[in-house]
C-alpha cells in the first residue's frame, strides 16, 4: 500500500508520527532513540503498521540543527571578508542583551576567532559598482585553505548588490574544501554583521546536516521522497536543506504552527492564536486568514539567523515550570523541572512544585490513567510538595494550586498581548488553538484570563508537529535587497530580479518532478518611505508598475499605521515564496455518533471551597452533535482537555473540539 504521506517529528523525548492516505489517517508517539534517528523513524512507522516501502513522501521535522546552534556544537569555520571589515563578526551591533548583569558578557563570543578571519582585497559599492577589483585572489584562497577548516564562509561587503567577487572566490575553492557557504546565497540582504553571522552559522552546521540527511536518505527506499520541515513552516528538499541547513533552525516549532495554520484554513477561523505549551516553554504565534506571520529577524542563541521564519513568541513558562515565592507574591518559571526529573506528580524524583503539579492537585489529571501508557500520575505527591508553601502563605493547598494557575495564565496572557498589539490586532476576538503536552489543559483558563471566548483543540493535538509535517506545503522563500526608487521606477530591474529569484526557488521543485504549472508563487515587495529603516510588506501580483506599486504601498501603510504621507518611497527588496500543493488530508474521520458516556466522575476544583463532581470522557468517543457542558475533562493517552464551568465543548466532524465560553 504505497503512497502514504508521512510526517515525523523527532523530539528530545518522543518521536511523533502522523500518516495519511486518502481518507485514512494514523498517528502514534514512540520514545526517541537519541543516537539512532533512523531507528526512531522505523519504530514510529511500525507503531502505525507501516513499512518504509509504504511511504510516498516523508516529511521530517528535526531539532538537530537547532540543538547544535543552541549547544554550540559547531564546525570550526574560516571566514573570507572584505579587507578592513574582517572584525565585523566580533564587533557586531555592540548592544547588549542584559542591561544589568555585569557578570554576563555583553555579547556571545565571536563565531570565528581572529586567526581564521582572512582579508580579501576587494570592494563593492551599495549599488553593485566595483570600487576595487578583486586582487590577490590566490593568496586569499591559499590562506583560507591553510587554516585546515572543512567549512569556509564567504561574506563580502555589498555582495547582495553584486555577488561577482564571492562567486570568483567560490569557484577557486569548490572541490578543494567540502563545505562552502556564500553570503549572497544564504541571505542576499543588506546589514553586513547579520549576513556574515548567518553565513558563518550556515557553514558551521553544514557538515552535520549533510551527513545526517545522507544517512537518512541511504536507509530509506529509493521510492520514498524525503523532505525536511523548514523554519517558515514549509517543506524543503534534502538537497536544498543540505546547502542551506540554517533553514531548519526552527524546524520543530514551525511544524506546529504550520499545522495550526492548516487547521485554521480548514475550519475557516480568520484570526487564530496558536498556543503550544510544553514542559519548559510556551510558544505562541498569530495566524491571520490561515497564514502565520513570517519574520526574517528571528534569533537563536543570541545570534541573528536572517532566514524567513514563522514569527513565534517564546516564554519560559511551561508545565514543568517551578513555582517560586518571592517578596510579595507567587511567580512561575523560568526555572523548570524539565523532562528529568519532571513534575513531582510524575514520581520520578521531582521535589519542587510545578504548574503541572497544580493541575494534579486540582484533580484534572486522571490518577487511573498512565500518561503515554508509562507514567502514573500521583496527585498525593503533588499536594505534598505544595504543602510547605501553602502553610507559609496560610492558604489551603487547593487554593494555592488555583493561584498558581492564575499566575501562569497571567504570564502567558502577556505573550498573547505582545504578539497581537504589536501588529495592531485585538487578540480577544481570536480563537486560541491549543496543542502541546499542556496546551489543552490550560487553554480555557488562559482564554478567559485574556478575554477570549473561543478555544479550538485540534485533532491529533499531541502529535501536532508531525501533523504539521504532513499538512505543510513544499515551500521555499527568499528575500533580496533591491533598492529601487519610486520616481522613474525601474520596472525592468524589478522584473529581472523577480524572474531570477523565481527560477532559483523553483529549481529544486522542478528537479523533484513537479510541473512548473503546479507551482503557486507568492510575491511581496518590501516598500518604505525614504528615511524609514524598515519596510512594509506589499503583496504583488505579477510584474508591477511604479504607479500601481506606489498606490498599493500607500493603502497598506494607511491600513497598518493610520496614515499615508505621499512622500517619496522606494522598494527596499523583494520576497518570493514558491509552493507546491500537497494532496494530504489532516483530519481524522469522525467516529460513530453515539452520545458520550463518562468513564468516571471525580471531584475537581475550579474555585476555592468545594470541588465539583466532574465527569471524564474518552476523547475518541466524542462526535457531533453531542456537546459537553463544563465542568468536564476530556482525555486521551497523551493529553487532558479541561472544560471549566461556563464553557461548552463541541466536537466537530473532523475530530477537532471547539470550546465556547458563555459570556455573562
Amino acid at each position, binding site marked *: 500500500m504505497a503512497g502514504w504521506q508521512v510526517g515525523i517529528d523527532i523530539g528530545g523525548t518522543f518521536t511523533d508520527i502522523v500518516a495519511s492516505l486518502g481518507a485514512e489517517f494514523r498517528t502514534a508517539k514512540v520514545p526517541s532513540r537519541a543516537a539512532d534517528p533512523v531507528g526512531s523513524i522505523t519504530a514510529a512507522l511500525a507503531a502505525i503498521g507501516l513499512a518504509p516501502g509504504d511511504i510516498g513522501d516523508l516529511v521530517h521535522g528535526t531539532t538537530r540543527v537547532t540543538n547544535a546552534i543552541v549547544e554550540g556544537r559547531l564546525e570550526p569555520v574560516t571566514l573570507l571578508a572584505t579587507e*578592513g*571589515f*574582517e*572584525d565585523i563578526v*566580533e*564587533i557586531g*551591533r*555592540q*548592544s*547588549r542583551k*542584559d*542591561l*544589568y*548583569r*555585569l*557578570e554576563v*558578557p*555583553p*555579547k556571545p563570543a565571536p563565531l570565528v576567532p581572529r586567526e581564521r578571519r582572512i582579508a580579501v582585497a576587494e570592494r563593492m559599492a*551599495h549599488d553593485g559598482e566595483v570600487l576595487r577589483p578583486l586582487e590577490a585572489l590566490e593568496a586569499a584562497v591559499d590562506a583560507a585553505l591553510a587554516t585546515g577548516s572543512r567549512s569556509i564562509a564567504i561574506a563580502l*561587503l*555589498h555582495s547582495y548588490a553584486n555577488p561577482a567577487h564571492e562567486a570568483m572566490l567560490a569557484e577557486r575553492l569548490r572541490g578543494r574544501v567540502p563545505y562552502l557557504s556564500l553570503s549572497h546565497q544564504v541571505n542576499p540582504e*543588506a*546589514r*553586513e554583521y*547579520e549576513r556574515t553571522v548567518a553565513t558563518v552559522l550556515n557553514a558551521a552546521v553544514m557538515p552535520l546536516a549533510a551527513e545526517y540527511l545522507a544517512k537518512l536518505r541511504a536507509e530509506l527506499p529509493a521510492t520514498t521522497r524525503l523532505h525536511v520541515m523548514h523554519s517558515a513552516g514549509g517543506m524543503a528538499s534534502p538537497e536544498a536543506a543540505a546547502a542551506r541547513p540554517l533553514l531548519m533552525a526552527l524546524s520543530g516549532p514551525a511544524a506546529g504552527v504550520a499545522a495550526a495554520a492548516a487547521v485554521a484554513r480548514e475550519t475557516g477561523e480568520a484570526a487564530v492564536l496558536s498556543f503550544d505549551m510544553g514542559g519548559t516553554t510556551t510558544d505562541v504565534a498569530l495566524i491571520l486568514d490561515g497564514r502565520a506571520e513570517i519574520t526574517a529577524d528571528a534569533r537563536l542563541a543570541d545570534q541573528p539567523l536572517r532566514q524567513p521564519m514563522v514569527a513565534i513568541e517564546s516564554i519560559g513558562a511551561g508545565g514543568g515550570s517551578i513555582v517560586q*515565592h*518571592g*517578596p*510579595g*507574591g*507567587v*511567580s512561575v518559571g523560568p526555572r523548570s523541572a524539565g523532562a528529568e526529573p519532571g513534575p513531582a506528580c510524575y514520581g520520578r524524583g521531582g521535589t519542587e512544585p510545578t504548574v503541572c503539579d497544580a493541575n494534579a492537585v486540582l484533580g484534572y489529571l486522571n490518577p487511573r490513567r498512565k500518561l503515554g501508557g508509562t507514567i502514573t500520575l500521583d496527585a498525593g505527591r503533588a499536594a505534598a510538595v505544595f504543602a510547605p508553601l501553602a502553610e507559609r*502563605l496560610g*492558604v489551603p493547598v487547593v487554593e494555592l494550586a*488555583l*493561584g498558581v494557575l*492564575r*499566575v501562569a495564565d*497571567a*504570564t502567558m*496572557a*502577556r505573550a498573547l*498581548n*505582545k504578539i497581537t*498589539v*504589536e501588529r*495592531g490586532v485585538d487578540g480577544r476576538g481570536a480563537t486560541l488553538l491549543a496543542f502541546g503536552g499542556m496546551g489543552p489543559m490550560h487553554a480555557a483558563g488562559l482564554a478567559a*484570563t485574556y478575554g477570549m471566548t473561543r478555544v479550538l483543540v485540534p485533532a491529533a493535538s499531541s502529535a501536532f508537529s508531525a501533523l504539521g509535517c504532513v499538512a505543510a506545503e513544499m515551500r521555499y522563500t527568499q528575500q533580496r535587497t533591491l*533598492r529601487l526608487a519610486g520616481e522613474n521606477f525601474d520596472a525592468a530591474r524589478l522584473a529581472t530580479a523577480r524572474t531570477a529569484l523565481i527560477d532559483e526557488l523553483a529549481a529544486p521543485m522542478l528537479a523533484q518532478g513537479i510541473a512548473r504549472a503546479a507551482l503557486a508563487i507568492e510575491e511581496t515587495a518590501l516598500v518604505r518611505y*525614504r*528615511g*524609514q*529603516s*524598515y519596510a512594509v510588506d506589499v503583496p504583488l501580483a505579477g510584474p508591477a508598475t511604479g504607479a500601481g506599486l506606489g498606490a498599493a504601498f500607500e493603502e497598506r501603510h494607511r491600513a*497598518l*499605521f*493610520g*496614515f499615508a504621507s505621499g512622500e*517619496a518611497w522606494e522598494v527596499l527588496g523583494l520576497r518570493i515564496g514558491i509552493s507546491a500543493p500537497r494532496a494530504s488530508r489532516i483530519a481524522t474521520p469522525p467516529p460513530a455518533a453515539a452520545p458520550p458516556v463518562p468513564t468516571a466522575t471525580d471531584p475537581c476544583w475550579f474555585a476555592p471551597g468545594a470541588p465539583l463532581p466532574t465527569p471524564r470522557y474518552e476523547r475518541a468517543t466524542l462526535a457531533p452533535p453531542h456537546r459537553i457542558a463544563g465542568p468536564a475533562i476530556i482525555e486521551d493517552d497523551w493529553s487532558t482537555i479541561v472544560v471549566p464551568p461556563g464553557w461548552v465543548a463541541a466536537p466537530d466532524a473532523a475530530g477537532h473540539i471547539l470550546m465556547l465560553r458563555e459570556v455573562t
Partner: protein
Amino acid sequence: MSHTDPFQLEVLRHALTAIAEEMSFVVMRSARSPLLREAGDLSSALTDATGALVAQGRDIPVHLGVMSFTVGAFLGRVPAERLRPGDVWFTNLPELGGNHLPDVKAIHPIFAEGRLLGFAVSLAHWADIGGAWPGSYVAAATESFQEGLRLPPLRLFTADGPDAEKIAVIMHNVRGPAEREGDMLAQVAATAAAEQRLLALCATHGTGTVEAAMAALHDRSEAAMRAAIASLPQGEFTGEDFLDDDGPGGAPAAVRVRIAVGGDHATFDFSASDDALAGPLNTTPYVTAAAVYYAMKAIAGPEIQPNGGCYRPLTVITRPGSLLDPPATRPLVGGNHETSQRLVDAIFRAFAAAIPERLSAGGSTTAGLLIFGGAGRDGAWKTLYEPHGGGEGARHDRAGVASARVHLTNTNNTPTEIIEAEFPIRVIRHSLRRGSGGTGLHRGGEGAEREYEVLAPELSLTTMFERRVIPPWGLAGGGPGAPYRCDLHHPDGTTEELRGKANLMVRQGDRVVLATSGGGGYGEPD
C-alpha cells in the same frame, strides 16, 4: 492588602506591565519619525494617583529615573483639582522631573469611580524640539534657550478634543512640524489605550483591588531594594570621576559622591560635585537618581522590578547650583547620556576597594556620538546619528569584551551597508583597535576604529563623546584603557584632532577616523 491575595498581585503585575508595554507598541506603530518607529527611543509608564511609578513598558534606566518623578513634580505645578477625565498634558521641562528638552512627556490622568486612580505617561524623544541646530543637539550651546522650546505643563487635549491654538504654537517652533504632530498624536493614542485597558482591569478585579496592588508593588520593589542595599558593606564610601571638559573647553569637571550605607538604607550625596558648567553637560537630579538606581541594580539586585518603590530606601542629594542641579538657563542636552555615565563611574569607584569582585573596571561610558548632517543621495536633508561602543571593563573572573555598550547606554551601531546606501559617506574601515584594552590579570576589552570618507561637497559634523582626556579606569591594580581619539584627515595630507564636543563642517575627501576607548583592566598583571 485588603482586597488581594498572594496570587492576585502577580496577576495584576503582569496585567499592569502589559498595559505599559502596549503603550510602547502603540507609539512605535503610529508615530511618524524613525527615531520612535524604529529606534524606539521612548518609554511608557503607569503611575498611581500621587505620581509614583507602578509599571514601565520597557526598562530604560534613564527614563525610569525621569518618569518616577515627572508626575509628582507636575502635580506640584498643576493641582489635581484641575485635572479632568480626557485631559492630556504635555511638558518637557528638565527641572520638572525631566532630563533634556527632546524627551517630551504626555501625561494622562485616569479616573475611576469618580476619583483619580493614576496616570498614563508616554515619553518620546522628538527628533527636533527647535533651537539653534537641526535635531536640537547643540554641542556648543551655552544657554538652554539654544537647545529648543521649553514646555511647561500644557493641557493640549481635553475630552472635547485638541486645543488647536496651543498645539500650533508648538508646531510653529519645531522643525518637521507634520512629523512632530504625528508623534504627538501617537503619544496621545498610547495614553488613551492605557486608560481603556486600566478601566477594564478595574471592572474585572475591582478598583480597590487595583489600587491595593499598585501599593503592594511599590512595597515589593522597596523590599527588594532594601535587600540589595543590605547586601552591601556598611559604612561610608567616596568616589569621584571626571568629565573631559565643560563642553566649550576648559579643565575636566568633577562629579563626586559620598555614599553612606546603613542597614537597608543608603544615602548618595553628590553635593561635592563641581558647579554648573557653561556647556551642555549639566544634568538634573532625576537623571542623577536614575544613575543611582542603575548602579544599585547592577551591583546588588538585577531582579528588582522597576517602580517608584525602588527609591524609598535611597536618599539622593544634589546641590542646587551644581552641574547635577543647575539653574534652569543652563544647557544640558548631553548630560542625559554623558554625565549620567560619569555618575555610575563615580559610584563604582566609591565601591572599588570594598567589593571589586562585584564591579567591572571602567568601560566606554559615553554615547561616543558622531552626528553627520547634510543632503542625502536623494537631495533630502538627512542625519546620521551614530553612537560608537568601546571596550568593556574587565572583571575579577574574565577579560572585558571588545566593542560593547556599557551601563546606561545600549544603542546599536549603523551597518556600513546602510550608511553607504543612504548617506554620501563611504566607510573605509571598521575594525577592532588592537591593544587598546587596559593591562591586568584580565585585560580590558578592545575599542573599535571606524573611518568615514565624505563624498558630498559638504556635511555638518557634531561630536559628543567623553573619555578622550580621562581614560577608562583600571580596577584592583589593572591599567587604564586607551582613550578616545578622533582625527580629521584632509585631502591635502594635513590632520587635525577633533574635540569631544564640537560642531563643524567637513568637506568632500575629508576622512574622519574615530578610535573608541579600550576598557580598564582588572588586577595586577602576572
